[in-house]
């Protein structure tokens, strides 16, 4: 009986040791030649540091960027109609839409660079994701600026959330590389955009405090075209 227990214990220990070994690429690579199934869930991945911890957050953030990209595209379309006819506003929103789309691709590249996976079908709810409920985009000029300002702030808070998830975690989950990436490619740029839009919104709000604001809006649109 004692022998049996000892044997079982030994078997258990050795299997743990084996599992531990498998976490290293080196041990897997040597068996590559003998087995034909060396692919798929390879242990030789690029994952390190806190990628497990931040991956879902970044995924949620990619989804947010894409959603906003299409929102902006429709906003641009709205101001491009012959009844609106505001090329300046159209240019502004088309620019924001293109930026969000390009940022999405850049984020996909960043996550996969770190050994992550991007799956568009799963929606991870996180403060980094924006609500999928679409608010009406058929608004007037001033409200559209307000809408854009709120959007940009949401995106900036999303990036901030991803960043703080990457920096404020326990040792094993910390991910300075990703935090640095977000800082360098998102946060500074976003502060710029938020400031710009808040300036626009305040300017136009002041300009519209006249009995007939149509000339003000016309001139403001001309100004936007030149930006």
């Amino acid at each position: 009986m004692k022998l049996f227990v000892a044997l079982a214990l030994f078997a258990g220990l050795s299997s743990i040791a084996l599992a531990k070994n498998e976490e290293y690429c080196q041990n897997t690579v040597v068996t590559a030649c003998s087995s034909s199934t060396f692919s798929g869930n390879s242990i030789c991945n690029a994952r390190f540091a806190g990628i497990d911890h931040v991956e879902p957050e970044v995924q949620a953030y990619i989804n947010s960027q894409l959603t906003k990209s299409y929102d902006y595209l429709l906003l641009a379309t709205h101001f491009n109609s012959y009844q609106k006819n505001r090329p300046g506003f159209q240019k502004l929103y088309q620019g924001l839409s293109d930026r969000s789309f390009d940022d999405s691709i850049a984020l996909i590249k960043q996550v996969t660079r770190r050994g992550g996976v991007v799956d568009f079908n799963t929606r991870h709810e996180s403060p980094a994701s924006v609500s999928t409920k679409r608010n009406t985009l058929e608004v007037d000029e001033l409200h559209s600026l307000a809408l854009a300002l709120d959007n940009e702030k949401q995106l900036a808070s999303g990036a901030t959330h991803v960043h703080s998830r990457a920096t404020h975690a326990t040792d094993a989950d910390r991910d300075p590389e990703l935090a640095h990436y977000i800082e360098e490619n998102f946060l500074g740029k976003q502060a710029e955009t938020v400031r710009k839009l808040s300036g626009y919104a305040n300017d136009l709000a002041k300009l519209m405090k006249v009995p007939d604001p149509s000339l003000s809006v016309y001139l403001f649109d001309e100004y936007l075209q030149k930006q």
Partner: protein
Amino acid sequence: MVKLIASLLLLAVVAQAYGDFKSKKESKSFAKDLVKEAKTQKQKPSNDECQDQGCKGSLEVPEITKDWVDMKDACLKGMRNQIQEEINASYQYLAMGAYFSRDTVNRPGFAEHFFKAAKEEREHGSKLVEYLSMRGQLTEGVSDLINVPVTRSIRKLIQTCEGKPYNHYHLVDYLTGVYLEEQLHGQRELAGKLTTLKKMMVSQGELGEFLFDKTL
């Protein structure tokens, strides 16, 4: 007695501060602020209408003739569908790009190819949207034009749009001249690449795929 009054005062101050905090929290969103402002403006009995109009922020849409807006139902619906198709395609390419970027798949050439394709499809969609605007459409119902998707219709669209009794000559020309042209060239290019890759993979398998990826 003095103590009681003092503590009451303190309570009042705290309550005030809390109220301020709450109202500040509520007005975090600028858009909401504007709506609120507009509402209070409306509630106020306005002596001068001009002031009210100014704060509403929206400008009247002048009545102009709609004779020149001449696109017809089936074709319009087809165009809206096509726009959604292009966006869906863009999404699919994006997912494919993400797949080939994975560390365990590692085909950067393919990934770059699909990211480029995703951008192109999105651009197609947005060009079609611009076309509709040019023809006087999309003055309303813009918000539901594109649904962000959870994932060979150009020819069919052309057929719909050149059908009787109303032929959309200009649009059909645009679709055949620009879109079909691009699509046909794209098809030929893909077919060529597919043949090369298949030939390489018959005898060389993984090595063929690896080398081919580097040429993309």
